[in-house]
């Protein structure tokens, strides 16, 4: 298995043709050759824009298109699950834009949503490599996001749960980010190099999501009677959907034996411990509520997903191929 750094270098080599093929070139708008040469750089600016060199969904799309990588059917199904989790959460969080309690929190939730959308794009693009359209081409991220029906989505129920008030969203973020961190942390060791590379990029972002949610758990719990009441209620609303995240099935077991996937049940212990530490500091308890039936991984969803998909997919379906 190559390290994430090696992976980034490999994709870098194909960058020129990637730009030509995808139209996503260098996004740098800073001063050319503005690399700092030491103290007193007169070009230095607090707002200079540099693109960085992290793995992008476009890089994966190019690898898929040129046949450099091709996931097996199992890996594609696994990538669909991870991608759908992130996609549905991104859509949910996006609804907070312009509605958060403060402008700063608006941007924070928007950033988290965009991080999740980025992970979704990478996972779905990769999954598409094993799924063909009718004309034989690999399915694109858009094909998978916009033109699948509800029962074809593989996201767990937690991600489609309504935003509720701010406390409910924070409670959902708390569970999601601690789960995703433990998952991606282990997935960086995957024998599947693309999954490992996506996870390596995602884990750093999810680490920040953990911090964001934990800060708010502490503040809501330690705030007023009202904020405390709401966060307790929020945790109670999302907790029935925690169990599904850690359910194993034949697919993940098979993939885990090959070293490609992470067995969900294997991360439950760390999740419980770390969640417990934050809740203890906040003076909160793990809600004692029964588990929901789940079934998202096999396409059985709650009534909420249909509404999300209707809103998310309507434009692409009404105007196929539209661009803006």
């Amino acid at each position: 298995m190559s390290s994430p750094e090696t992976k980034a270098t490999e994709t870098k080599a194909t960058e020129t043709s990637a730009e030509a093929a995808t139209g996503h070139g260098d996004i740098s708008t800073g001063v050319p050759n503005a690399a700092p040469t030491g103290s007193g750089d007169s070009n230095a600016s607090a707002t200079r824009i540099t693109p960085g060199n992290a793995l992008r969904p476009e890089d994966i799309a190019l690898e898929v298109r040129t046949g450099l990588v091709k996931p097996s059917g199992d890996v594609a199904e696994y990538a669909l699950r991870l991608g759908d989790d992130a996609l549905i959460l991104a859509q949910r969080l996006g609804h907070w834009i312009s509605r958060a309690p403060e402008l700063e929190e608006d941007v924070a939730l928007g950033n988290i949503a965009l991080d999740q959308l980025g992970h979704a794009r990478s996972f779905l693009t990769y999954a598409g490599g094993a799924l063909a359209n009718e004309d034989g081409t690999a399915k694109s991220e858009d094909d998978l996001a916009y033109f699948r029906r509800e029962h074809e989505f593989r996201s767990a129920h937690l991600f489609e749960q309504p935003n509720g008030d701010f406390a409910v969203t924070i409670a959902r973020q708390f569970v999601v980010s601690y789960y995703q961190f433990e998952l991606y942390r282990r997935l960086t060791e995957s024998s599947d190099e693309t999954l490992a590379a996506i996870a390596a990029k995602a884990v750093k972002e999810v680490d920040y999501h953990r911090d964001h949610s934990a800060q708010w758990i502490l503040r809501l719990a330690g705030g007023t009677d009202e904020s405390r009441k709401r966060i307790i209620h929020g945790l109670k609303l999302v907790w029935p959907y925690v169990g599904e995240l850690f359910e194993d099935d034949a697919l993940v077991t098979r993939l885990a034996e090959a070293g490609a996937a992470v067995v969900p049940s294997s991360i439950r212990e760390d999740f419980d411990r770390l969640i417990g530490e934050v809740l203890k500091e906040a003076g909160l308890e793990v809600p004692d509520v029964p588990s929901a039936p789940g079934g998202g991984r096999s396409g059985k969803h709650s009534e909420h997903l249909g509404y999300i998909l209707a809103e998310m997919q309507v434009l692409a379906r009404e105007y196929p191929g539209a661009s803006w």
Partner: protein
Amino acid sequence: MSPHGNPEVPASSATEINREAPKASPVVEPADIKSSPVVGPGETRVSTSSNTPGNAWGLWEVFVRSSRGLSHVHAGSLHAPDAAMALRNARDLYTRRNEGVSIWVVPADAIAASDPDSKGSFFESPQGKDYRHATYYTKSEGVKHL
């Protein structure tokens, strides 16, 4: 609950994070919050008396260092309930395009600023005094390494 819940309900309670505050009244008006300095877990008490009316959160000035070896440069300001959240908000608002490697946040009212009206007496004196610049002086003969 509607499909999207009801995020429009103002979450004013979320803006108050004083753990030591008396937990008597369930409804806290922004005015009440304003009167009590906000303190986050593990944070030192910071005066946020510069609150703008209607905003429960204090104003913070943000300084970003774009790379190693450079100075922190003022990037803008933001609202936050305490220093820990101010740092995080600054990260989200001012470094989302890879602008920085280090952030400082300072309560806006901790900054003493020069009076814009006294520009004349403050800043005009150095004008015309070019002997305060090194280039005013000619190089002396026989002095090396200049």
